[in-house]
C-alpha cells in the first residue's frame, strides 16, 4: 500500500516535471521577442537590450529553465511583465477566487450528479432514467457560454436575484464575491454534472449486472443493502476518475464562464495573460493547473484505493 502510494506520487512528480518542461518550451515558442513586446512602441535598442538582460533572455534556455524551476519550488514565479507584481502572489489571488467557484461547483455537481446517476442506473430504461439521461445529454450539448448567458438573462436581468457580473477586482473579499459565485458555479455545474451523471449511470448499470451483485441478490438481501453495500463501491470506482478529470477541467474550463461574468478568477487571468503575452504568468498558471490535475488524479487514485481493497493490499496496480 505504501509502495503503491509512493509509486503514484513518483509518477505524479514525473508528470509535473515533464509538464513544466513542455510549458516552458511552448511558451518560449510564442512568437515575437518578449522584450520588444513589453516595451511596445517605445522600444529603443538600448532599452530592449537592458530588458533582455533583466529577463535573462540572453542566457541559454536550459539555464533559464532551471532558474525558473528553482524559483517555482520556492514559490517565486518571477514578476509579471504587465503589472510588475510578483506572479506567485498575483496568481494565487486569482486562484483563490476561482477555488471559491470550484468548491461550490464541485460540491453541488458531484453530490447531485452521483445521486442522479445512481437513480438513472437503478431505474434503467424507465422514466426517471429517460428524464435524467435526456437532461444530461442536453447539458453536455450546450456550450458553457450559452448556459451562462441564459442564466444571466433569467436570474440577473429578468429577475434581479444575482449580480450579472462581478464588479470587484482580484483582491475582493469572500464576502464581496459570495453573492456572485452562484451563477457561474451553476453554469459550470450543469456542464460538469452531465458527464458525471452519465458515467455514474453506466457504471451502476454495469455493476448491477455483475455476478457479485446477482449473488448478493440471490442471498436474499434487500435492494437497499445490495445497492449500498455491494454495488456502490464498485460503481464509484470509474466515476471517481471522471470526477477527478472534471475537477481538473475546472481549472481551465472556468475561462469562458469567468469571462461572461467578469469574475476575477484564474480563467480570466489566463485569457488576459495570453493576450498580453505575460509569459511568467502563463507559465505559472500552466504549472499550477498541472499541479491541480496531478493532485486530482492522485486523489482519485487514493479514493480508488479506499474503494478497492485490491489496490490497498497489493503492491502492484495491475
Amino acid at each position, binding site marked *: 500500500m505504501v509502495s503503491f502510494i509512493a509509486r503514484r506520487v513518483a*509518477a505524479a512528480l*514525473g*508528470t*509535473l*516535471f*515533464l*509538464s513544466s*518542461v*513542455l*510549458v516552458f518550451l*511552448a*511558451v518560449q*515558442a*510564442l*512568437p515575437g521577442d518578449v522584450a520588444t513586446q513589453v516595451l511596445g512602441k517605445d522600444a529603443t535598442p538600448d532599452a530592449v537590450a537592458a530588458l533582455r538582460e533583466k529577463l535573462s533572455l540572453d542566457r541559454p534556455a536550459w539555464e533559464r529553465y532551471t532558474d525558473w524551476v528553482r524559483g517555482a519550488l520556492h514559490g517565486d514565479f518571477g514578476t509579471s511583465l504587465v503589472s510588475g507584481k510578483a506572479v506567485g502572489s498575483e496568481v494565487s489571488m486569482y486562484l483563490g477566487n476561482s477555488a471559491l467557484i470550484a468548491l461550490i461547483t464541485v460540491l453541488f455537481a458531484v453530490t447531485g450528479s452521483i445521486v442522479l446517476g445512481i437513480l438513472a442506473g437503478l431505474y434503467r430504461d424507465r422514466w426517471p432514467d429517460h428524464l435524467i439521461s435526456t437532461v444530461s*445529454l*442536453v447539458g*453536455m*450539448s*450546450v*456550450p*458553457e*457560454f*450559452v448556459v451562462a*448567458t441564459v442564466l444571466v*438573462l433569467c436570474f440577473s*436581468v429578468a429577475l434581479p436575484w444575482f449580480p450579472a457580473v462581478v464588479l470587484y477586482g482580484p483582491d475582493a473579499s469572500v464576502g464581496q464575491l459570495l453573492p456572485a459565485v452562484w451563477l457561474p458555479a451553476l453554469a459550470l455545474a450543469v456542464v460538469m454534472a452531465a*458527464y458525471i451523471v*452519465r*458515467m455514474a449511470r*453506466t*457504471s451502476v448499470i*454495469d455493476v448491477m449486472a455483475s455476478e457479485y451483485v446477482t449473488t448478493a441478490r440471490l442471498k436474499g438481501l434487500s435492494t437497499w443493502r445490495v445497492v449500498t453495500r455491494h454495488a456502490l463501491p464498485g460503481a464509484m470506482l*470509474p466515476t471517481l*476518475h*471522471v470526477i477527478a*478529470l472534471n475537477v*481538473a*477541467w475546472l*481549472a*481551465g*474550463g472556468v*475561462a*469562458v464562464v469567468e*469571462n461572461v461574468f467578469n469574475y476575477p478568477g484564474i*480563467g480570466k487571468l*489566463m*485569457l488576459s495573460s*495570453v*493576450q498580453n*503575452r505575460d509569459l511568467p504568468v*502563463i507559465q505559472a*498558471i*500552466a504549472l499550477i*493547473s*498541472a499541479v491541480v*490535475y*496531478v493532485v486530482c488524479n492522485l486523489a482519485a487514485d487514493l479514493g480508488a484505493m479506499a474503494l478497492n481493497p485490491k489496490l490497498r493490499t497489493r503492491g502492484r496496480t495491475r
Partner: protein
Amino acid sequence: MTTLDTAPPAPPATAPARAARAWRTLRSSRAAVIGLAIVGVHVLIAVLAPLLTSYDPIANDSSHALLGPGWDHWAGTDQYGRDVLARVLYGGRYALGVSVAATLVTVALGTVVGCAAALRGGWFDDVLGRVLDAVLAVPSILALLVVVTALGTGPAVIVLAIAVVYVPQVVRVVRGAALAVVPADYVTAARARGESTWSILRREVLPNITDVVCVEFAMRASWVVLLISSLSFLGFGADPPTPDWGLMVAENRTAITVVPMASLAPIIALATLVVGLNLAADGLSKAWGVDRIREGS
C-alpha cells in the same frame, strides 16, 4: 467429421455482407439512427445552403437591421441587416468543416500512436504515457489559446491546436482498446510468424478497434464542435463576417432581448448538432458494445 459438431446457421459473410451487418447492428440502436440522421441533416444543410436561402450570409443591409422574424426574413436579421437564417444555414460549413477536419486529424493520429504504444509496449509505451500525461495536465483551453496566439487564428491553426489538445486523450482511449486486442492469440500468431509491427497493426489490431475509433470520432467531434464554438465566442476562432455559430452568439447575445432569434437560432443549430453527435456516439457504443464514457474521459 461428425456428429455433435453443430455449426451455427449463419450465412457466409463477404466484405459487403460485413458492412451490411455493421449497418444492421447500427440500425438496431434508435439513438444511433436518430443521431446520425441529425448529423446528416446538418451536413446536407451545410452543403445545400446556397439552394436553401437566397440571402448572402455576409451582405450588410443597413435598412433591414434588427428585424424580428417575418415573411422576408424567417428568423429575422442581425444588427448588420444580415439574414439570420442564411447565416445559420451557412454557419454549419465552418463548424462542420473545421470540426470534421480537426477530428479526423486528431483521431487518425491518436489511433496510430495509441495502437503503436499498445503493440510496442515497453519503454516506448512508458515514455509516451508520461509525455501524454504531461500534455494532458496542461488545461486544454490554455494550450489552445497559446497555439492560436502563437500562430494566429485561421482554420488550419485551429485544426492543429485541437490536435495538440485532443490527441493525447484519443491515444489513451485507443491504447486502452488496443491493449485488449494485443494479447489475443491471433496477434500472438502474427508475431510468431514474425510480421512487422505496422502489418500487425493494420491487419490484426485496427480492424478490431474500428468500433472504438468510430465512437471516439463521434464523441470527439461533439467536443470539438463545442470547443471551436467556445473559441469563436472568445474571439479566437472564425473572423467576422464568417457565418459561424459561436461568433453569432457572441455578436448577438447582448441584443438577445431585442432579436432573440439572432442568438437562439445559432444556439439551436449548435446544440442539435452536438446532441446528434452525442446520440450517435451513444448509440454506436451501445450497438457495438464500446463503453464510451469510461474510455472517453
